[in-house]
């Protein structure tokens, strides 16, 4: 497109790019054991070597810090960054698809669907000898978790889309009904919550605690494997979603208008729902339920740079990653040395903003 607002990368983009490495380094240095910038600079060159077998240049005290960074903070910070980016760009894409700024994956039930799918998958396979939450760290367990979450999330997304959008042979009703969308989202969230509670009720105390902690969203289980799995799913999803910028802009005009501009609406819908379900499901499976990132980030960016997806999608990914790394830092330090689940932080930030959005609903003229 050739509009003035769309040429070049823009100031906001450069600021986001600049802050990303700063925030990532902050994520490595902040925590119960503070690591200052000098120590960090000394350790960074040895980050991907094993401190115990190759201690060249590191004294024994530094080796301990190296372990903290390499084994705990690096996977955790990277996982937060990936999950945040995936959730935020998914939110932006869903909002474009539903033509509604409130369509966040956690509000319309995709997140809770994915959460239930993951629990069910683990419990079902658990009958076949896999121990819930202990064998999960193996590759097999992780992929079962992601697959279950994907099926749950995809089903939830399709049900919501189906029920809240008029059938395609009634053009007049092809507009998504927001009230229906939110209500179906509530129903699916409640249903999935009941399913999760039932699973928790049927298992032992330890598993029950793990399930409820999972539903609060937490990055404390981050590991190399989880980061690699998240990267393999979320990075391709982010890159794929960015290719839909122009089509999503056209979709905001309305479904039939987009078709008249040459967009294959049906194909776009399916592609977006499947990619988003993948991104959201993997983040739910690997980092638990983290709400509101997909709602807050695109909304704030829209106020800064307008609704054009050419910028909104990449900026959302950048800002979402930043936000979740920041939220995870906060989660680590407020109750230090204990931790808060990061999902609680994002909900504490996101819920008030959601209420403000609802109060401004007349701006969108669609309720």
């Amino acid at each position, binding site marked *: *497109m*050739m*509009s*003035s*607002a*769309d040429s070049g990368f823009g100031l906001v983009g450069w600021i986001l790019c600049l802050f990303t490495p700063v925030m990532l380094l902050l994520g490595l240095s902040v925590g119960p054991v503070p690591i200052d910038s000098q120590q960090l600079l000394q350790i960074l060159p040895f980050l991907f070597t094993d401190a115990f077998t190759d201690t060249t240049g590191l004294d024994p005290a530094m080796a301990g810090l190296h372990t903290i960074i390499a084994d705990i903070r690096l996977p955790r910070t990277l996982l937060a960054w990936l999950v945040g980016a995936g959730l935020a760009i998914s939110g932006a894409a869903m909002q474009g698809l539903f*033509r*509604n*700024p409130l369509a966040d994956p956690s509000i319309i039930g995709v997140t809770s669907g994915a959460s239930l799918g993951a629990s069910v998958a683990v419990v079902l396979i658990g009958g076949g000898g896999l121990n819930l939450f202990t064998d999960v760290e193996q590759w097999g367990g992780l992929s079962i978790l992601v697959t279950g979450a994907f099926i749950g999330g995809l089903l939830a997304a399709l049900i919501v889309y189906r029920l809240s959008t008029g059938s395609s*042979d009634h*053009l007049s009703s092809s*507009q998504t009904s927001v009230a229906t969308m939110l209500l179906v989202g509530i129903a699916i969230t409640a249903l999935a919550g009941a399913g999760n509670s039932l699973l928790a009720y049927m298992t032992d105390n330890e598993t029950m605690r793990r399930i409820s902690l999972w539903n609060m969203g937490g990055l404390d289980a981050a590991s190399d494997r989880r980061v690699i799995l998240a990267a393999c799913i979320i990075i391709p999803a982010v890159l794929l979603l960015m290719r839909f910028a*122009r089509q999503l*802009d*056209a979709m*905001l*005009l*309305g479904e*039939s*208008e987009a*078709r*008249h*501009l*040459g*967009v*294959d*609406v049906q194909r776009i819908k399916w592609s977006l729902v499947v990619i988003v379900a993948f991104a959201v499901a993997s983040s739910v499976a690997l980092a638990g339920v983290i709400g509101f990132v997909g709602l807050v980030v695109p909304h704030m960016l*829209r106020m800064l740079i*307008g*609704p*054009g997806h050419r910028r909104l999608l990449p900026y959302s990914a950048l800002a979402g990653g930043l936000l979740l790394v920041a939220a995870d830092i906060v989660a680590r330090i407020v109750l230090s040395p204990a931790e808060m689940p990061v999902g609680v932080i994002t909900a504490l930030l996101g819920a008030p903003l959601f209420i403000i959005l609802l109060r401004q609903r007349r*701006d*969108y*003229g*669609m309720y």
Partner: protein
Amino acid sequence: MVCINMIHSQQSQESQEGQESRIIFDAVSLNRDGVEVLSDISLALQAGTITALLGPNGAGKTSLLHCASSVMACSRGRVLLNGADIQSFTPPSLAQKVAVLPQQSGLNFPFVVEDVVAMGRYPHSDGQLCDRAIIHNLMDLLHIRDLAQRPYTALSGGEKQRTQLARVLSQLICSPQLDVYDNSVLLLDEPIAALDMPHQTLLMNLLQQLAAKGLTIFIALHDVNLAATYADKIALLKAGHLIAFDSVSEVITEAMIKQVYDIEVDIIAHPKTAKPLVIPEV
């Protein structure tokens, strides 16, 4: 295939006389929820003409436009665009030939006016400079240049309508001199409803100018007098049936209006254009 070949040969004969059919409705019927909203409609839109589509509320005007834009598939019959079945076009190839202005638009995101107009250029890639010149020229013509950087959501109804018109027109215009792409078609559903009188006249004059450049225009209207003044031909619909399809003087008669709208009218000649002017009886 035989039938298509017949139409092809018919077309080539017509084009020799400068009477090429751009869109042909070939015995089109449409069922929606078991109700027949269009029955057995056959008409041909000539290249470079304005055809007005008139009829009471619920007569099937919008449905007929939907068939012409391939949004709906006909239950029976077919629609041909430049001789080929319209259902055989892919969305991108159709968008290069046919632009559509729907009755209402549901854009609720604050794109600025210029960005909305620029979306009309999506199907084409003629280079940014050319695109920008076309967009700016159309915004000047429709008096929305001053609004270029205003958010669409903050506009009045008439301003929104002119923005959408500029977007739809930019899809079919290939130069700042208002040249149109070859063999292209503009479908407008009630484009003047939100416009004030000067802008109604402005739009209809602009459409006449574009038709003279070869654009084929099919426009659903409620204002019979506007249709009589600007259209080359008029199609009259009632309850899904095509009652008449002919030149203005043949269609706009007291008897025909009575038959379709069920009201008594007087028809006088326009003092300047001598076109029929319809006055409802008091």
